């Protein structure tokens, strides 16, 4: 399982990385949250916003939604 936060290094991107790491711990998932600042990876996914949350290489959240439950929900759904 691979969880990635892709961002250009802005404040919202860092926030998303923190939140995601916390959620992964909370759910006791066997995954490391990678923080990728190489913007070309975002563009290669066909996305023009930052940050992006991706589970197993698939974007599940584009742009930052500052809601813990929502992010948790998206990760759980993506894993099903």
């Amino acid at each position, binding site marked *: 399982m691979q969880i990635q936060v892709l*961002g*250009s*290094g*802005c*404040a*919202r*991107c860092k926030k998303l990385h923190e939140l995601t790491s916390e959620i992964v711990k909370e759910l006791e998932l066997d995954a490391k949250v990678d923080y990728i600042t190489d*913007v*070309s990876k*975002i*563009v*290669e*996914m*066909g*996305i*023009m*916003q*930052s*940050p992006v949350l991706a589970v197993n290489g698939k*974007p599940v959240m584009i*742009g*930052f*939604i*500052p*809601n813990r439950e*929502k992010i948790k929900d998206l990760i759980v759904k993506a894993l099903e």
Partner: protein
Amino acid sequence: MDLFYPIQLFSDWLTFGLLNLDKKSIFGSSLNFFIYDSVKILILLIVIIFLVSFLRSYLSQEKMRKLLTKKYLIIGNVLAALFGIITPFCSCSAVPLFIGFVESGVPLGVTFSYLISAPMVNEVAVILLFGLFGLPIALLYAASGITIAIVVGFLMGRMNLEHLVVDYVWKIKAGSMGQEQKPTFKERVNQAYIYTFDLVKKVFLYVLIGVGIGALIHGYAPEKFLAQIAGKGNILAVPLAVLVGVPLYSNAAGTIPIVKSLIEKGLPLGTALAFMMSVTALSFPEMVILRKVLKLKLLGIYIAILSLGIIFTGYLFNLVI
């Protein structure tokens, strides 16, 4: 009737009724001014940001990009500047957006039109101007912002600057998202709700501080004191105002209420508009981020032309109004 009259009643009741302050005292009138402005702006922020963010869920960046790749003289710039008004813009997205646009064939000049319009004509700035200065000034600001975005983008497009984009940008292959999922109505409302409260929470503190300082100036600064130092007679006032605006980026919300009081004290409107545009469009953090995709020379050209555009607008309004 004034739509905001009930807020004035509330503010009067609070300051002169409940707190029993003297209507003629400086403190009383400053506090009254502070409560009225902050309540009014809070309501406007919540209502308008919610509406805008709900409506914008219908315009995807994918659709936008498709429209902008069609190359008609200047029409691309006009469309890009208009899209810039409704789309949210966080400087974090500047780089992926720039690459995504340029990669898929959106002309460089059109991309710049968007990059100028998106932060400059943003909903928070326009709401604050509407709430504090009224509709005509808010529209004047938006119209000049859009015009600058169109003209600057168009000029830069004519200069053939593609070779000044950092090389790796041209090598990236933009992927495709495939099928975009259509959110349901409920999801759109929900997203807009979350977005609105996040944004309002973030800017409202600055608004309060700005309105607070504005109220102090309103009550305590001598009448027309700015007319002497920064009035129309001072030819350097406009460029200076633009320079002062650059580092104030994150505080656009706090700056506008202060500007309102400065205008009351004699700051000419054109100078004030130029200042506000520089606060929103010429932000230092965004320039640092853009350096990742623009060679230094191109970044310099961009900043120079944009600054000239803003300064010109400032002079123009000082002359006309």
